[in-house]
Each structure stands twice: as C-alpha cells, then as structure tokens.
C-alpha cells in the first residue's frame, strides 16, 4: 500500500513501481528476443545442414546417390545436446533416414528452405527441408532432404539468457529503488529546509520566510508567509485588545480607588469610613483577579511554546526581590537573599512571574516586622529556590490542593487574593520540567515554598 503519510515514501514507491514495471517489461522483451534469436540460430544451422546434404546429391547410373557429410551432423551438435533426425526422400520413396518423421505439408520449391514444427518420438522438433531436382533416369526427380532437431538447446540457451535478463532486471530494479529513494529525498529537500527554517524559529518570530524555493513551493511559501503575517497581526490585535481591555477596566478602578481614598480622609463618620474601605478592598480584589487571569492566560500561551534562553537564577532572584522590596518595606519585612549562581535554560519572563507570585504571597501573608528568606541550593541535577516566611503557614488542608485553580488556603483570612497565584507558579515550573514543593515549617510559624528546576 502507498502510505499517505509521507510524500517521500509515496514518491519512492511510485518511482520504484515504474522501475518494477520497466524491469518486468525489459525481462519479458529480452526473454522473447533471446528465444527468437536462439530459434533463428537453430533454423540457420538446420538449413545449413540440410543444404550441405542436398549438395552431395547426384545421379549415378540412373540412381540417386548422396553422402551425409560429417560436418552436416557435427554442426548440429553445436547448439546443444539435441536429438537429431533426418530423412531423404526421392519423390515418394525413402532414400535414407527416419521414414516416420512428420510429413511436410507441402514440399519446398527447389532451392528454398522450408521450416516446419512437428512432434516426433514424444518431443517437439524443428525441421528444415531443402529440395533439389536430380536427373534420375529419363526425368528429373525432386529429392527432399529434411533435417530435424529437438528444441532443448534452444530452450537451454533462451532459459539461460532469460535468467541472466532476470538477474539484470532485479539488479536494475534494486538500483532504481535506491536511486528513487535518493531522488525522492533530493526533491523533498527544499520542503524539509523550509520546515527546518520554520521550526528553528523562536515562538514569537513571525517574520516572513525569505529563501529561494523551487517554483512548486513558491505558492506554499507565499501562503505560509501570508499566514504568518495574519497570525502576527492577530496576535498583535489580541495583545492590543488585552492591553486596551485592561486599561479600560483598570483606569476607572484606579479612579474609584483614589477617590475613595481621598473621601476617606474627609469623612469623619466611622460607618462611612468602613464602607469606603470596603469599596477599596473590592476594587483591589477585582483588579488582582483580572491581573492574575490575564497573567494565567499569558503564562499558558507562553508555556505551550517555551522560549529557552540561559537564565541565571541568582540574578533573577536579585531582580525580582528588588522589585518587591518597596512592598516588603511597607510592612518592615526584610527580604534576605542567600543565593549562588545557578544557570538553567528557560523563559526569564515566566520564571520572574512565578517567583514574583510566590514572593508576593509570602509578603502578603507575613506579619509586620518579619523576615522572608530567599535561598538557592543545588541538589544533583536540580536547583531549588526556597522562599521561607514567618506567616501563618499553609493551613491544615491538603497542601497539593492549594495549587488548584481558584482555591485558597483555609487560613487566608481576609487577605485579598484570587487563588490563581500558585496555579500559575506550578504551570510555569512544569513547563520547564520542574515542580513546586509546599511545606508548612515544622515547629515554627510560616511556609516554605520551593521551586525546583532542572539545571542546564
């Protein structure tokens, strides 16, 4: 069956099929020609033999006389080991030879050779007959010399040639199959090169392909480039849309929050103050949820087609914690870094986001005036980033369930959070071949969250 999965295989099969057909055809033709040639050779030898005998015909004292020349028979042994029969007839009378050889349908005209095929002694024989007029007595008498031979030699010769032709046909076929394979590969090379060029690209590289392609592939290249252009436009549009949507949602939220905050200062009534604080908290919660939903979508999209660049985790921890330093300082939380250089391959944006989520959580749940420790350790082929805080820990619920979407720890109290944070972290880590480990610190307060990543 022709595989529909591969053009190369299909091309190879097609070419090989044609080669097989040609091989069989050539074998058949050579076999036929060989048989023809062998038969013609036998005919010629038979004719020569009969003629040689006919040439010895003469008339002596009114009687037809002849000799069978030695060479006339010797030459018949040349083709192969064939049985030989002969007959010489003077008119209707047998002069010598095998009387019961098949009769000729009609005697050959003088000076010409007639060939017949018949059966004698259980075998198919080929006969050549020559006639001569010999003056015996008063009038010329037609004397017919017939030489007959079985066809073993012819069969042997043609079978040998046929076998030779078969061997050559098979060899030709073999060579053709190999050449077909290479031909198919060569013709598909431009396609493979385009495929390789596309797959070598980074996930966000949507520049048009600029390379020479065979005429047949030009439409494919054009379509591909057009598709990439459309894809690029579409991605840009969605990014613009997300940005626009975020802007449209968050700017009013910011206005509301700011207004509420200002109002809070001029209002003296405690009940109203509480209401205003409630508004602010609601705004914070919805903006955080929106942010994490967008982050989660972005992470999922980027993790599907991961960019891999060398990332030094010490630098990453330094930058990320520096960005959160002001937030931590607000609660007089000290961020302690205990790092060492550790290089991995990965997407720095995603890794930053994961660490930021973990650190954000740690700061959020830590009490005032405490310490959050970031440490990097290596263990075999793995590197571990451990974030340890002095917060309430992870509660009594199942630790693994914390990373499930929209679930929050049982002891989060009224701290604002959407519950997507750890899900994002876990998604990022598993995209890098790593994992997330969560522990409540034994005997002490606080949680210990470890990001485990494979070293490069």
């Amino acid at each position, binding site marked *: 069956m022709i595989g529909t999965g591969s053009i190369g295989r299909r091309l190879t099969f097609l070419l090989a099929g044609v080669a097989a057909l040609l091989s069989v055809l050539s074998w058949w033709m050579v076999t036929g020609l060989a048989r023809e040639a062998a038969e013609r050779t036998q005919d010629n030898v038979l004719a020569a033999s009969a003629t040689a005998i006919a040439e010895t015909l003469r008339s002596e004292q009114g009687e037809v006389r002849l*000799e069978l*020349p*030695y060479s006339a028979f*010797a030459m018949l042994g040349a083709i192969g080991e*064939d*049985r030989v029969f002969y007959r010489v007839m003077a008119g209707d009378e047998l002069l*010598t030879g*095998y009387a019961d050889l098949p009769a000729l349908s009609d005697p050959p005209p003088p000076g010409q050779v007639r060939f017949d095929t018949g059966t004698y*002694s259980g075998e198919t024989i080929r006969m050549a007959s020559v006639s001569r007029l010999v003056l015996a007595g008063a009038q010329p008498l037609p004397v017919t010399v017939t030489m007959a031979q079985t066809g073993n030699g012819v069969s042997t010769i043609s079978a040998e040639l046929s076998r030779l032709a078969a061997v050559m046909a098979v060899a030709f076929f073999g060579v053709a199959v190999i050449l077909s394979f290479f031909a198919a590969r060569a013709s598909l090379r431009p396609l493979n090169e385009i495929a390789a060029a596309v797959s070598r690209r980074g996930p966000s590289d949507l520049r048009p392909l600029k390379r020479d392609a065979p005429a047949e592939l030009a439409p494919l290249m054009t379509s591909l480039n057009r598709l990439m252009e459309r894809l690029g436009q579409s991605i840009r549009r969605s990014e613009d849309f997300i940005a626009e949507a975020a802007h449209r949602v968050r700017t009013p939220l910011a206005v509301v929050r700011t207004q509420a905050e200002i109002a809070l200062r001029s209002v003296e009534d405690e009940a109203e103050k509480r209401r205003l604080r409630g508004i602010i908290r609601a705004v914070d919660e919805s903006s955080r949820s929106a942010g994490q939903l967008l982050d989660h979508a972005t992470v999922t999209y980027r993790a599907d087609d991961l960019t891999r660049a060398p990332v030094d985790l010490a630098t990453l921890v330094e930058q990320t914690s520096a960005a959160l330093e002001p937030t931590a300082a607000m609660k007089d939380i000290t961020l302690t870094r205990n790092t060492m250089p550790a290089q991995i391959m990965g997407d720095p944006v995603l890794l930053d986001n994961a660490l930021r989520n973990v650190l954000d959580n740690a700061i959020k749940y830590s009490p005032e005036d405490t310490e959050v420790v970031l440490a990097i350790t290596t263990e075999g082929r793995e590197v571990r980033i451990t974030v340890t805080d002095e917060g309430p820990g992870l509660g009594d619920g199942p630790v693994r369930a914390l990373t499930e979407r929209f679930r929050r720890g049982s002891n989060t109290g009224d701290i604002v959070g959407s519950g997507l944070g750890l899900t994002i972290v876990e998604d990022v880590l598993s995209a890098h071949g790593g994992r997330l480990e969560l522990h409540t610190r034994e005997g002490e307060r606080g949680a210990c969250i470890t990001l485990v990543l494979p070293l490069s």
Partner: protein
Amino acid sequence: MYHAGLAIILTLWATMAHALTIEDHRLYPGTGDVTLRILSTADLEVFEPYLLAFQAEQPAVTIDYSVVSSAELHRAITDGASFDLALSSAMDLQFRLANDGFAQSYRSDDTQALPDWARWRDLVFAFTAEPAVVVLSTDRFEGLEIPTTRQELITLLRENAADFAGAVGTYDVRESGLGYLFATQESRSTDAFWRLSEVMGRLDPQLYCCSGQMIDDVTEGRLALAYNVLGSYAAERMARDSGGRVQILRMQDFANVMLRTAIIPKTATEREAAGALIDMLARLGLREDAGQWPLPPLNSAGPGEAPEYGPIRLGPALMVYLDPLNRRTFLTEWEDAMEQR
C-alpha cells in the same frame, strides 16, 4: 553383420523378438530380490572386477551379465529386449540408441561430476577412454625399425612386403562395430588411412572380429602386427603375459580414443540398481590413479597422453557413418582397398 533397417526399427520392435546371440553369460547371485540384467560388449575377464566391486557395495543385487557383440546389443535394445543396463564400446551405436529414444535419462551427483564431453543429455555416460593402438610381435620385428607414424608404417610395410605378407591383422569392419567406428573416424581424420589400407590390402591382411583374437595371434607370432587394436585389451593381455613377446605402439600422428559408454534402456525395470552401477562406473571413470582396474579412466585420454586428439565426440556426427547409404559407400571403398587378391 550389422544391418540396420533404420526405417523399420519400430516396426521390427513391434512384430518380432529376435533371438540373441550371447557369447558369454554369468550370474552373480545376490542376497535380495533385485536382479540387474546387464548387456555388455566387455569380456567377463575384463569386466568381472567391476561387477564384484559393485556387488561388494550392493550385496543384495543379483547380477545377470551377458556378453554380446555391439551389433547384437544395439539390435536387442531396439527390438525391445528387456535389460537394465547396456554397456558398449561402440559409442556410435549407443549414441544412436539414445538419440532414437531407446534410453531413459538418469541424473545423480556422480553423473553430474562427469565432464560435458563424457555424457550426453543424461542419457549416455562414458566411463572409460580407450585408445586404438598397434600391437606388434617383438620376434617378428627383430632388426626392423619400430614405426611411430602411419607414414613410417606404410614405408616399413612397403619395403618389407615379404616379411609382412599374411602377417598383418586388423578388424573386419563389416563384422566389428568397433572396427568400423575406428576405421571411419580415422578415414575422416587422416588421409594416410586409405594409403595404409591399400598397402595392407596388398599384404593379404587377416581380418578379425575382435581385439582378443588379434592379440592372441600376435602373441603367438602368427601376426607381425595388429592394427587398430583396443589398447586397453592389449595392455590387459600384456599384464598377463610376461614374455615380452608383444609391444604396444601408439601412433604419434593420430590416435583414436574411444569412449566406453553406458545407457539405461527404456525397457529397464531395475532403474535404481542400474543407476547405482553407473554411479560407480562414473566415479571409477574419474579416478586420478589408473590403479589395478583393467580399464583405463577417462583422464587417460586427457591432456597428458595425447593432447592434440580428444576422444571421439559424443554427438550427432556419430550418426553419419551409421547411415546405410554412407555405410555402403564406405564398405565398398574399404573392400576395394583391402581385398586386392
């Protein structure tokens, strides 16, 4: 006398069963039921070692061995007489039997090992190559120079006509199939044949049916030389006679080499046993060392001995002199040469 009614062979076979003229016969009883009936031209004293060797291999097989002339053998087979194996020194007649469909094919590793020229169509198998030689009496040749070619022999006979009158022997080619084969092949191969025949004809030649008698007569001094004797028989006789009264001479200008052949007749019933004997003969035919066997191996005709003349070819050309017309012509000429009294 050989008379082949070629045109009526099949008719003859169908209508009459000719009584065989058997020259010698011997039964070698075996332990089993199988009886291998052999028709052969080889004398018992020459062939018995082979039969005994075969029986040592296959003790179960009873061998029924009949010695006949080559013409009788040919006639018996064409008449449809029931034999399992036909061994003959007349390779032309053996060939003819095979060509005309009286032989059945046999194929084995041993027959395949035979050279191409020693078998024909898996029907005819040669197992000895035996040259034709001149045997001469050392007594009668005392003081005479030993000839090495036909020309020298002719000169010798001419110059010493008195010494050789009535003392030259050769085959009566009308009687002996082998003699006819040697004579026809020689006439074809060398023009000295007819001149020699004429010279011999003037010396009142003695004509024989068989090699054996000729060798006997040379040994006993009745003949000074015997021309065209089967070399193997002469050698075998020499081995028995230690008197040194005969000398074997191989002509340097040309020497016929005859192939002794075997066929399995169409009428054979013990095909397997016949095949086994052919296998043994083929193996012996290919042996490197001549050894103690009475008949020489095939390679005695090979390159070492007479490189220029191979054995007579097994092929359709053998049929030429069997044709009655050709035979009549040849015999007429031969008689003209040999009978000049």
